[in-house]
């Protein structure tokens, strides 16, 4: 009964979605605000990656919100799982091959993550991707070594420090420029590492924050007693 009703409702919804989307032709160039960003990104922000300039500058406020969502998720998760944390993760060491492999790859993954968020304004990728990559690196170590621990104190510091710097950069735009999150540094030459003003700095802060948060989140989940 329930299934029939669900199929019926979804059928109606699917029909309306399809008919609405048939009015939005696929692959056609629509006049959107995107055109403005594409034309002006290099000149106005110095970032050659338009996505980065939108994420960090034009719509930087969204990114602040997004970082907040992750922060919120890790806080909320820690609050919900507060009192059933075990001391140790009860798991076996992985096999020797995995451990040696993990040890070899771990620094490389961290390096890759850092590379991705430092070059966010030049190549695909940025703070979120870099941070997520770093978290997967730490996860690999969690999986291979029982004794591998991250210091919660430092995670907290890193996380808060990165968050505070994001907001502070924003507020300094308000102090020395005209608006919150405004770019107050010189734009430099496009396509060079040190260019695009505050964009790389913000993205590095985002990367550190995302990495620390996801690591903390995974650690909290893993330490829950069954």
């Amino acid at each position, binding site marked *: 009964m329930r299934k029939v009703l669900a199929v019926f409702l979804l059928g109606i919804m699917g029909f309306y979605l399809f008919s609405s989307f048939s009015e939005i032709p696929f692959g056609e160039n629509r006049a959107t605000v995107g055109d403005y960003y594409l034309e002006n990104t290099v000149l106005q922000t110095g970032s050659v*990656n338009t*996505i*980065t300039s939108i994420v960090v500058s034009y719509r930087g406020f969204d990114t602040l919100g997004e970082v907040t969502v992750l922060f919120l998720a890790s806080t909320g998760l820690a609050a919900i799982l507060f009192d059933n944390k075990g001391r140790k993760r009860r798991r076996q060491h992985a096999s020797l091959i995995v451990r040696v492999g993990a040890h070899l790859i771990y620094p490389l993954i961290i390096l890759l993550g850092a590379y*991705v968020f430092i070059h966010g304004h030049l190549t*695909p*990728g*940025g703070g*979120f*991707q870099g941070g*997520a*990559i770093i*978290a*997967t690196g730490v*996860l690999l170590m969690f999986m291979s070594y029982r004794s591998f621990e991250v210091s919660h104190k430092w995670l907290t510091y890193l996380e808060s420090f990165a968050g505070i710097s994001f907001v502070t950069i924003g507020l300094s735009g308000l102090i020395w420029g005209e608006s919150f999150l405004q770019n107050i540094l010189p734009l430099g030459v496009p396509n060079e590492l040190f260019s695009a003003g505050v964009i790389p700095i913000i993205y590095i802060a985002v990367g550190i924050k995302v990495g620390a948060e*996801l690591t903390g*989140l*995974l650690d909290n*989940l*893993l330490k*829950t007693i*069954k």
Partner: protein
Amino acid sequence: MIVALTIMVYVLAVILIIAALFAVKQKDLLLAVIGTSAISVVLSIFFYILQAPDVALTEAAIGVALSTIIFVITIKKTERYEE
């Protein structure tokens, strides 16, 4: 070249839907989670084809790896089979 790409897209779309149905129907939750990570893999390829490398990278890191892992951890902490 273009034809090959089109065919590939269609094949991938079929795989995507099959993976989604598998994830919904499968009684073994671990396998169902593998299904969702397969969805993410296909999506990540789609994003790349649709000229969104940034998003493809994010989907690969978050959808394929992290999201799957938190599901797997949760299943480990609870139970594996759907009644």
